[in-house]
């Protein structure tokens, strides 16, 4: 008779555990993360003002799978070539995109907050730029002409393919890196004046740009999410007493006597 009761307790415990595991479902909205990029800030300090960029982002977490992101920042350049040709521009830029978390959450395990992300961005910057000290000299016929390229207004749009990781280093504090390949959507025709630097895109050399970000961010969990997390934990503590008999050594032969 006792044997049957132990087996009954076991199946009861398994059933309860299963119910608890099923109740820890990933909510639709898991809060949002505010992040800042360290690499652009550090490289801005080391480039002595030739190029500078400061950027941050706001990323929402849906189902721990889909993470739409808004990146924004301020960047510019103040470049002087060896021939004394100068380039100056600065502006705000923005990028909108979506990341997909490639780490699949297993239902029977506690969901991890770490992320392996792949995604895309659509970036845009509207800015004015100046190119100074451009002149054409006719070596044979003689004469020289200065060509002013002042206050040229332009809007550049580009797309980015990104991949990266985020690791929760302390509770709700995330760090991680992102590698991105940037390509301009519309390219300038041959012979047209083009900006040397595009805020948010980087140096415009006519080809795809690659960049790396190292971000630190804080994840704001929503209050109801915290409550549900606490509620979800409670049944686990209740189960423990039920599971205790299983851990104690039993002599089944004695009980059957």
């Amino acid at each position, binding site marked *: 008779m006792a044997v049957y009761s132990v087996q009954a307790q076991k199946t009861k415990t398994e059933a309860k555990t299963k119910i608890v595991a099923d109740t820890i479902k990933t909510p639709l909205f898991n809060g949002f993360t505010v992040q800042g990029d360290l690499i652009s800030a550090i490289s801005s300090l080391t480039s002595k003002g030739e190029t500078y960029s400061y950027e941050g982002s706001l990323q929402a977490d849906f189902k721990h799978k889909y993470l739409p992101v808004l990146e924004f920042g301020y960047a510019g350049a103040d470049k002087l070539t060896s021939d004394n*040709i100068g380039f100056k521009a600065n502006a705000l830029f923005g990028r909108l995109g979506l990341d997909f978390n490639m780490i699949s959450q297993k239902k029977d395990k506690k969901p991890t907050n770490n992320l392996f992300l792949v995604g895309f961005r659509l970036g845009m910057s509207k800015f004015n730029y100046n190119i100074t000290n451009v002149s054409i000299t006719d070596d044979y016929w003689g004469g020289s002409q200065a*060509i002013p390229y002042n206050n040229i207004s332009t809007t550049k749009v580009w797309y980015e393919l990104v991949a990266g990781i985020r690791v929760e280093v302390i509770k709700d504090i995330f760090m991680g890196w992102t590698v991105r390949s940037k390509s301009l959507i519309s390219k300038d025709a041959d012979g047209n004046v083009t900006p040397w630097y595009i805020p948010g895109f980087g140096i415009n050399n006519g080809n795809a740009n690659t960049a790396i970000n190292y971000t630190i961010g804080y994840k704001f969990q929503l209050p109801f999410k915290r409550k549900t997390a606490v509620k979800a934990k409670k049944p686990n503590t209740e189960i423990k007493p039920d599971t205790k008999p299983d851990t104690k050594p039993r002599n089944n032969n004695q009980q059957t006597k």
Partner: protein
Amino acid sequence: MYHVTQTDTSRTVASMSIDSITVRGLKYDAATKKYSYMDSVLYNNLKTITKIDLPLHSFELTSAFEVTFNSKKITTNTVTSKNDTILYLNKRDTLIVTHQNTDKYLSLQCGSVKVHSIDTILTTNNFIDSIRITNRKVSNINVENIQIYK
């Protein structure tokens, strides 16, 4: 430089080598309405030449050149059935090229250059028979723009 051989039934165009050539730019003085030589010579008695590069004026719409040819032409005499050699010594022609000039931005490092579009070419006919414009767009790329025929 090209040479055309034409018979009753055929017309053959062949590249032609000039024994020596001298090319100088001519600048126009609006006050005196006369052309005068530029200080530097573009080609100074250069031997055995098949093509020349002529710099067009970056800031004016006309570029003029004086070309001095030294060449010989060998033809078959139909009466004697022997080769006749015709010598062209110091034959001077003037080329006047009218063109449009446009700024072309290259990059921040290279700056801008002028590119040209040839409108017309006028020539005297002391040595040159005719001229054909093959490509009106003139840039700093090594492309043939005109053909000079003897």
